[in-house]
């Protein structure tokens, strides 16, 4: 495992703090995810319920909220996949899994060329910038991870090409990063997640 020194921003002090980029999603990350992330998420969901946000009209996978073991096994990795995580103050702040083998570019002038596909990217719930959530603790984790994906793409000889399906709440993030929004496809991600 290799660790790269990186910086993320402590939101309360607005100052950069040292963090580590690890080229793995290890057992430690999965435990942080299963217990610490979920606890914060639970508090957030309670707050939503307290604010009258109700249960109908779910638009994410039903298995998401309980089948953590399957989710862990899936993130743990497949051949041709690699994982990265950002750790700060001994807690996992964000994770990403890359598919280096099976995806091709879709924009016209690069059609069919290999790219690095981000098949999973998530940051810890205490870093979310969402209605009803507490202000995030850290910012800039997504930036570190996306830069990692781009760097990895260069290393693989893919000239920095990166593709991903964005969560609805992350669309402006990727647009600001300079990604091109190719819209949703009814045959992918239940037609809910736009491809960049």
């Amino acid at each position, binding site marked *: 495992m290799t660790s790269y020194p990186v*910086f993320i921003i402590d939101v309360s002090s607005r100052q950069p703090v040292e963090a580590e980029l690890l080229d793995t999603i290890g057992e430690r990350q999965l435990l942080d995810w299963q217990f610490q992330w979920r606890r914060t998420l639970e508090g957030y969901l*309670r707050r939503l319920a307290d604010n009258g946000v109700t*249960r109908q009209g779910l638009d994410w996978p039903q298995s998401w909220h309980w089948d953590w*073991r399957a989710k862990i096994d899936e993130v743990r990795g497949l051949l041709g996949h690699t994982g990265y995580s950002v750790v700060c103050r001994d807690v996992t702040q964000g994770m990403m899994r890359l598919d280096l083998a099976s995806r091709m570019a879709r924009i016209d002038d690069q059609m069919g060329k290999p790219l690095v596909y981000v098949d999973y990217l998530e*940051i810890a719930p205490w870093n979310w910038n969402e209605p009803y959530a507490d202000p995030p603790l850290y910012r800039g984790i997504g*930036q570190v991870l996306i830069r990692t994906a781009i760097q990895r793409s260069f290393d693989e000889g893919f000239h920095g090409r990166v593709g991903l399906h964005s969560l609805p709440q992350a669309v402006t993030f990727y647009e600001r990063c300079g990604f091109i929004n190719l819209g949703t496809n009814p045959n992918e991600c239940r037609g809910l997640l736009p491809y960049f």
Partner: protein
Amino acid sequence: MTYSTTAEWALARAALDETSTPGAGPLSARPHVPGEAFWLRGEETRLAFARFVNMARRQRGWSIEKLADDAHIEVGELMSIEQDGGHEPELRTIWRLSEIFDVSQARLMELAGLASPKDTHAIEEAVRYAARSTAITALTAEEQAAFDGLVSVLRDKAK
């Protein structure tokens, strides 16, 4: 991989995160607000509840029928509880089970997904124990006999 960034880069780029939360891939999906929330972990805790009822019954060496008789619960309700993770037990059933197995009614209701957990740690622990309890040993002689009987019936039916 070569990778190096500076504190200045982090400061400049983090400004891009200010109004949204990064996330990609269906595995990272989460509630989209304003949208709708749900009650977390209903199915997960209910599976643990099913596991608890199953083990508590077997520990006492009872059949489902015996437990149903003693606790005045419908046999069908008990079978659904033990075998159907989607089944929502009746309040009365929880009360009977908590009496007969001598456990907290409130805790059991939380585990069955009928009340929101006050102590999420306890419920999390219960779920972990339940997951750990999933049988990895071979069938007992009685289980094997019952299983053989079941298989023979199914084979007869298939003809």
